[in-house]
């Protein structure tokens, strides 16, 4: 009895393995042909099929873009697996410097502490930032200086910047957040920092909910996250629109970086090339509400 069962199990196992093997064989055999057909125009010289594993972590602002690119890239190259995780720009930089991931995504340039880590910068997109307030704030337009004074805690009431008598609650992000570092470098004078009693939320999502819920609150976030439930402030009289970045009037935007430790390996390089390709920049980047990196160079 025992013997028959194990024999049966073995037969089933064998069949399963063979079928799987066949399927894998078929897949890998079919792939190069397909690739030559679709990729014929853009990467014609590449003959052998790419395979390997890429890991990326970091900025949660950049995550949707990298994830989207990863799924498209994997569709084209079935031998490649790409794992993308969030965790904040600080985490991304740290992990890529330690060699824990292949690519570290960051909203900000790597600071001096990474000078010796041999990081190579790949700029992939522009992320617009906006200042947002709760809907009940009557101020709709502030100057950069007023924004700086509010964020550093010098001005604590909306009536001092032309609004009604209402306490300002600053809602910001944690120390490791790229958004926080970016807004600090863009708006706050050197040597000063965000007000200490500012509320700190861990993610852009939580920040948005808090701004939505808290009367008199102000926060900062990537433009794509801002929706009709909160008010997007005009800055120095300019309304946020993607065109206004291209023509240079909207000043709050950061360059999204994907760092590699040293020169990227073949697969990572191909992935970065794909993100920077005209096809992806033109069709996908804007659809994801980022701005193609090419517009910066104008």
């Amino acid at each position, binding site marked *: 009895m025992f013997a028959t069962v194990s024999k049966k199990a073995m037969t089933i196992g064998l069949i399963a393995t063979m079928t799987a093997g066949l399927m894998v064989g078929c897949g890998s055999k079919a792939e190069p042909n397909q690739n030559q057909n679709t990729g014929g125009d853009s990467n014609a010289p590449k003959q052998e099929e790419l395979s390997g594993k890429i890991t990326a972590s970091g900025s949660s602002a950049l995550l949707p873009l990298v994830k989207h690119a990863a799924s498209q890239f994997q569709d084209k190259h079935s031998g490649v697996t790409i794992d993308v995780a969030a965790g904040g720009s600080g985490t991304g930089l740290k992990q890529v410097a330690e060699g824990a991931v292949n690519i570290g995504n960051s909203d900000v340039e790597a600071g001096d502490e990474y000078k010796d880590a041999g990081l190579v910068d790949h700029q992939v997109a522009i992320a617009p930032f906006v200042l947002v307030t709760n809907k009940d704030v009557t101020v709709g337009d502030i100057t950069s200086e007023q924004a700086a004074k509010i964020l550093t805690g010098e001005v604590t009431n909306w009536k001092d910047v032309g609004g009604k008598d209402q306490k300002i609650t600053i809602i910001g992000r944690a120390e490791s957040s790229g958004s926080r570092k970016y807004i600090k470098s863009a708006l706050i004078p050197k040597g000063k920092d965000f007000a200490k009693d500012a509320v700190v939320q861990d993610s852009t999502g939580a920040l948005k909910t808090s701004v939505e*819920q808290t009367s008199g609150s102000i926060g900062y976030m990537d433009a794509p996250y801002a929706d009709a439930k909160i008010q997007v402030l005009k800055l120095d009289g300019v309304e946020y629109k993607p065109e206004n970045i291209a023509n240079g009037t909207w000043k709050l935007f950061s360059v999204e970086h994907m760092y590699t430790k040293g020169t990227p390996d073949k697969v990572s390089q191909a992935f970065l090339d794909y993100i920077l390709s005209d096809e992806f920049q033109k069709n996908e980047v804007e659809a994801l509400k980022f701005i193609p990196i090419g517009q910066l160079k104008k």
Partner: protein
Amino acid sequence: MATKETAGSFNALRRRSDRMMHWLFVGSAVFVSLIIFGIILFVGKQGLQTFADPQAGIAEFFFSTNWTPSEGEYGAAGFILGSFLVTGLALLLAVPVAVGGAVFMAKIAPNWMREIMRPAADLFVGIPSVVYGLIGLLIFVPWFAKTFPGQPGFGVGPAAVILAIMILPTILSVSEDALRTLPRALEEASYALGATRWQTIRKVLLPAAMPGILTGVILGMGRAIGEAMAVQMVIGNAPVLPKGLGEPTSVLTTQIVKEMASIFGTTVNNSLFLMSLILLLVSLSLILVIRIVARRRDA
């Protein structure tokens, strides 16, 4: 003869498997202890390296409330104070309700009601803390903002309320067990002496069940002081002393989460290990207190 031999070899086999299992269990126990001591040693060693940085002094860490790592100020007193404040407030809110509920469930409620309430209370323990945090963010933060005009609503107030709700079922079920397992004779003797039900509960049952109730309270306290996610969502996480119930502040756990991405080996990161060590020591002493309380009950 033959049977005796089989019996002998059977016994030998049994002895051998007994011995094997014995060593397996001893091995597991040693392994678990090694892991625990390993964690304590690692956290302790890493944490104490905070003071290798001459800018971070022991007195500063424990007594200063100025937390500005970018300028070399590592005062964690605010977080330590915040942790105890939030936990204390949560206990203040939760204990009367939980003990009252336990008395009701153990001594007053009809059986069918107890059958419903008991599993319901146990179910509460299993709700993930992020759900409590979300409820806090969407309901209690706006409520505190409305109740204390001029305060943003984030702070110890909503954190204590959320924690109170979280630890309520723990205290309730442990206290209820303690009350229900009291010998019936106690109650009957009290009634026989002419005491009313209220007198019996207050003067006889509650004091007799006190060690069990205390165990529940201490367990709840342990959960409250170590909770990070739910608290982080509603406390505001500003590294300053709390100025009101609805003013943002920070506690040990949320501060660790907030600064987690700092680089391993830097003073900021080491100080996070030191905060973890404090939390670890608090939990350890709470467990010790439970032990002592339980031993007194047995005696």
